């Protein structure tokens, strides 16, 4: 049995090609036109790199230097969030920092953030220049409505280098 006996007609296949091309073209035209007119129009090609995504609308980056983090710590104006695993956190973390491990963020988010206001200044950190967990945690917090969040890159190592206050042990869930 050849294909000719199975398919209804070649005409249907030509229709398919013509019509699907036409439909696709119309969708492209409408999509681009509506996007142009949209008040919050998307750029056609955006920068999806992590650094770009960490840049706020004002042009500032969420990344803060160690000096700024220290000031905020001393004035007790920020809550520090350790994005590393609980094992690393227990071994040592910034004094009074909470543990919200990125690898289990969905499980612990509600408990850790329960008593934190959406306006609160948060500083996410992990360890190592290439560690992205702090950055991912910051973005996650941002998208969940905690828009006042910053990132301290290589936070743990820098903190220890500067001999700033640290402590050990697991987070007991008390603020």
């Amino acid at each position, binding site marked *: 049995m050849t294909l000719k006996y199975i398919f209804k007609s070649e005409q249907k296949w030509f229709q398919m090609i*013509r019509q699907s091309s036409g439909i696709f073209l119309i969708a492209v035209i409408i999509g681009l036109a509506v996007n142009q007119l949209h008040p*919050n129009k*998307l750029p056609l090609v955006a920068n999806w790199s992590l650094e770009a995504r960490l840049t706020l609308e004002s042009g500032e980056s969420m990344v803060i230097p160690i000096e700024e983090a220290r000031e905020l710590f001393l004035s007790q104006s920020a809550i520090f969030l350790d994005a590393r695993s609980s094992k690393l956190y227990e071994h040592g973390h910034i004094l009074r920092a909470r543990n919200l491990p990125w690898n289990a963020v969905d499980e612990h988010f509600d408990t850790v953030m329960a008593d934190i206001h959406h306006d609160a200044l948060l500083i996410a950190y992990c360890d190592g220049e290439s560690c992205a967990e702090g950055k991912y945690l910051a973005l996650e917090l941002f998208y969940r409505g905690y828009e006042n969040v910053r990132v301290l890159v290589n936070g743990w190592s820098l903190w220890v280098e500067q001999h700033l206050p640290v402590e050990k042990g697991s987070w007991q869930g008390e603020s």
Partner: protein
Amino acid sequence: MKHLHENADSSLPDYSQGIHAPDHEPGKSRRWYQAKVLPFVVRLILGGVFIYASVDKILHPAAFAEAVYNYKILPDALINLTAIILPWLELLLGIFLLSGVYLPGAVFLINILLVTFFVALVFNLARGLDIHCGCFTTSQEATINPCMCLYMLRDGAFLLLALYLFSHVFLRKRTTKNIER
């Protein structure tokens, strides 16, 4: 584009050999999957689903772009373009399915889309990426992320419906008349 009637269902029984056409034995009702009402119902379901799925994405393109990014499949450069164009494609396809217009093109495209979505889900399930599906809502805030298996079941069901439509529109029913030709 051709006239409407050329796209209409051409599966009417052949009465050139008398009332008892070869694929319709006297006294036997047509098989349920051959009845004309079934393709219509399937078109309604899929058309409705596609229109419903497109609305939130059209209203929140930035959030949808975020969802597309999270699948980590497309190259960065294509993400925004996809977020801009795909929802309108879904809306158009939903409308064409409901109205029965340009069915060959529409049915072909919905099959392409549903196969793509299904493969993307399976691919991400296989590599352990736990993502918010982004299929019907662009909200990334769901505190409970339903098992991706559920997404697969649902998408699999839609894909089966789409494949049925494909066979109905494009494939000839096997009848003795066809074989004899």
